[in-house]
């Protein structure tokens, strides 16, 4: 149960943090259609996060932070609003500060290609909740991927400026791609126990998809090297970058100011 909870938290934190970053685009996108599309992506991921955090709490109540007596916050909110940065288990790709629209395009593309490759297998999870989340999520992620892939190609083939920006964003994010496929011991155990997916096993499938997009965009595979962690630890180990604690300071400010609040 501890492994299931830890595994569900990883998947949930990925979605929660990525959703937050994407939601920052609301009212800031290049056009109304994109504002709507990005809000949609943020909403889908938020929905995934809620189900996964709830699953984690149900699997092992000890992962849920203890709130002041009388707090009516449900477990999903206790987990989202009352953990510190080092308790979060998301991959570092999700947490970076937002850049320009090219950055958003590449980030959503990498994130959803990876997540989709994993979740296609997660549909066969022995945990019925995870399996159900994955069945629904796969459809959502396919939409996210297609949206980002379309923009990836458009920007790459649009103007000189858009291509230049896209390439900068691609090279800037590529160093975080290998981390997505590292197998954390929790993930290994989850795969072993039949309810999780070893991300190491889906790299080939994910890269095959990505290569199609790169080919359509006429963009060569980046040669940027992997970004190392701190003492070998990365996002899955709770070792994050500076942007996450800043993001959480904002995200958690109202909830923490009113730990007994009803919302």
């Amino acid at each position, binding site marked *: 149960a501890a492994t299931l909870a830890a595994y569900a938290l990883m998947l949930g934190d990925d979605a929660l943090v990525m959703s937050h970053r994407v939601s920052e685009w609301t009212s800031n996108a*290049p056009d109304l259609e994109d504002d709507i599309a990005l809000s949609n992506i943020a909403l889908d991921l938020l929905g995934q996060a809620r189900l996964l955090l709830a699953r984690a709490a149900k699997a092992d109540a000890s992962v849920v932070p203890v709130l002041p007596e009388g707090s009516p916050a449900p477990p999903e909110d206790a987990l989202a609003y009352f953990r510190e940065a080092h308790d979060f288990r998301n991959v570092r790709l999700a947490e970076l500060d937002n850049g320009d629209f090219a950055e958003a395009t590449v980030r959503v593309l990498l994130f959803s290609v990876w997540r989709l490759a994993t979740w296609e297998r997660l549909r066969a999870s022995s945990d019925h909740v995870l399996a159900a989340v994955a069945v629904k999520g796969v459809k959502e992620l396919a939409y996210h991927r297609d949206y980002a892939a379309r923009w990836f190609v458009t920007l790459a083939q649009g103007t000189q400026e858009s291509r230049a920006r896209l390439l900068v964003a691609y090279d800037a994010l590529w160093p975080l791609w290998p981390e997505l496929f590292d197998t954390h011991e929790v993930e290994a155990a989850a795969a072993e126990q039949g309810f999780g997916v070893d991300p190491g096993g889906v790299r080939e499938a994910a890269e095959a998809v990505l290569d199609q997009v790169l080919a359509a965009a006429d963009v060569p595979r980046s040669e940027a090297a992997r970004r190392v962690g701190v003492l070998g630890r990365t996002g899955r180990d709770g070792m994050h970058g500076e942007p996450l604690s800043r993001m959480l300071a904002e995200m958690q400010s109202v909830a923490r100011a009113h730990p007994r609040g009803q919302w």
Partner: protein
Amino acid sequence: MTLTETAPDELESHFEATIARHDRIEPRDWMPEGYRRTLVRQIAQHAHSEIIGMQPEGSWITRAPSLRRKAILLAKVQDEAGHGLYLYSAAETLGVSRLELTELLLAGKQKYSSIFNYPTLSYADVGTIGWLVDGAAICNQVPLCRTSYGPYGRAMIRVCKEESFHQRQGYELLTTMVRGTDEQRAMVQESVDRFWWPALMMFGPPDADSPNTAQSMAWGIKRNTNDELRQKFVDMSVPQAEALGVTLPDPELVWNAERGHHDFGQPDWEEFMQGVKGNGPCNAQRMAHRRRAHEDGAWVREAATAYAARQASA
């Protein structure tokens, strides 16, 4: 029969007859230039209001205090973008593009609703905006579902349906908060104190000071006067405030059995006029935000255009 074969006065009487029958004018129909201009101005202002209106609430998406509320708020702000989209499309049937209208907004040549020049200062404002601001908007907009211009009326039907959903969500947030801590109740009251008067201003100046109302009503663009709608809103809000347990900040607010309506005080119309002139608390901030987003997106829109052209010619 083509347009060129029809005499101007015949066209005009056809238009007048349609209006008189409370039928809809459609994009293909002839219409007086004044009617068209008034409509473009009104629809554009309405569309701009949706887009600018994303900011005050959008400012709290990243701080929503529960994941459920975050999802509700995100979806609501997204709906506002959607409303902007329908409304710009309705305006486009009158021959003006979304880009043109956006540039008129950014140049300060078209307006948006002054209510969005008030700041959001606590999470209770998300609820209050839903309850009072969306509530006032609905009072204004429901009659517009029967407006004489077809595309506008049909857009308003969709908008109104979603707005009343938003209004219920906002009110529900407030009812939840007042069941919470003392601080939360104080937060709700403070928020209502701040938004009550600006909400009343949303119906526009008193009828006596509203010179365009008569023509708009004659054309069937507008169906009620400002003061009629304001009265309706006050009558509707008083019992809702009671149910919520908040006080509306108007000492003159009292039931008038004779009129069958509430009497109420006047908002500070001078503050209203300052907001209209661009001197409200957030005008500069809202416009700067919109301008930055528009400028930051320019290279993306150019890339999309270039890519589409290349695809078309390929």
